[in-house]
């Protein structure tokens, strides 16, 4: 085992990789927002919807939580063309990740809704709050506080999940790492650099989210 690490050839590509990290963040944000919207609809359906809607949501969540994201995207990417729907790799990944995140976020948002107690609403009523006041001063602050930590956690997971898009030749951080690897052949060097970028990226994002949570929503979110 005689191997000399040569980071010299790799250093020049770091700005290129950081550009990929920005794309990763974008993809994570898109799929997170879409997933959160899906989750909101689903969680509402689970709480107030009719029985068929509840069963459909349960089936969707169970299926997407118990199968790998990679295979879900493979399915979207290779099976839909057989039905005549051709998707760009980026679009296919975004759709797959949104549907996958939607299942996780349904669970999270449902738990957030359920943490609301009957006694809080009773208290609001006995103080003479109308509906708008109840939603604005009682329900929303409670739900935001309950949901903020798991949601920011899910966003971090979403950032790391985007690396799967590299398998479909999307040029986000991991995809660009593959590219640099093909040019330089300094494989371990470039992948370890990518690993460090991922660690720093998620650390920065979770610190930022914790700070925002503390300032804006008065949530005690932990970074570690």
């Amino acid at each position: 085992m005689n191997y000399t690490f040569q980071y010299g050839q790799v250093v020049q590509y770091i700005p290129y990789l950081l550009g990929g990290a920005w794309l990763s963040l974008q993809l994570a944000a898109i799929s997170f927002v879409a997933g959160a919207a899906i989750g909101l609809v689903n969680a509402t359906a689970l709480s107030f919807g009719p029985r068929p809607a509840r069963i459909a949501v349960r089936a969707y969540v169970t299926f997407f939580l118990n199968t790998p994201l990679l295979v879900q995207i493979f399915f979207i990417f290779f099976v839909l063309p057989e039905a005549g729907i051709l998707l760009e790799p980026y679009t296919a990944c975004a759709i797959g990740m949104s549907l996958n995140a939607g299942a996780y976020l349904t669970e999270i948002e449902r738990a957030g809704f359920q943490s609301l107690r009957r006694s809080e609403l009773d208290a609001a009523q006995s103080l003479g709050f109308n509906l708008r006041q109840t939603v604005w001063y009682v329900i929303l602050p409670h739900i935001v506080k309950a949901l903020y930590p798991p949601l920011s956690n899910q966003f971090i997971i979403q950032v790391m999940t985007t690396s799967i898009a590299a398998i479909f030749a999307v040029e986000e951080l991991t995809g660009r790492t593959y590219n640099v690897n093909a040019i330089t052949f300094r494989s371990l060097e470039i992948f370890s650099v990518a690993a460090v970028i991922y660690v720093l990226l998620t650390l920065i994002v979770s610190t930022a989210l914790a700070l925002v949570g503390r300032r804006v929503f008065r949530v005690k979110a932990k970074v570690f």
Partner: protein
Amino acid sequence: MWSTLRDEAPRFFGYYNLLFIGEAFLHTLALSYLGALLGFVIGFALALFRHPRLFPILPLRLFAIAYVEVFRRIPFLVKLMCVFFAFQIAGWRGSMFTVALTTVVLSAAAFAAEIVRGGFDAVHRAQWDAAEAMNMGRADTLWRVVLPQSWPVILPPAFGYTIGFVKSTSIASQIGVLELTYVAKVLNTRGFSALICFGTILLLYFAICWPTKLLGERIERRLTTRVRPVAEPMMA
């Protein structure tokens, strides 16, 4: 679409294909469950090292914290490639299965350490103090006081964590490990439609993950029956 399925099914589920899929199924099972189990053992040790009362040794503690924080923040695919190329440099000539298993164990250890730490933290401070006041040793404190109270907290998330690795191992197809996703890709290139290939393995993954999840929920219910919520939740 359904007609292609009907036409292909007899050929797809032929003897040799079934053998191929069955072997891959076992590999996926072994890779994820064995990896999660070995990872849990290492993760347990890391959680011990990280605990200020059980192992008041600063370097060990720092190592455990750094390990957990770093390995939880790297995507599985990137970890896999790092391990893959590290093995290559070390002159590894063995199976890709070992490479994938190493990756699963390395990342499982980090996640397990967090789960076990959560279990330790769930034990009230007074319990630790009481154990110390009774002059119990560290091993005794862990075995007789802490662990009996932490298991109900540790066990339920451990199932979700195992399912996570069943799903992550699909990425191991990238380095050519013979597991379910790899088989789907191979059969797809042999001319079977993507629908039947990926549809079948989606169902097989589901057949591994869902029972695991149900078992976890069942155990969680059994462990938490004694604790009842104080106020009724609004939307039950």
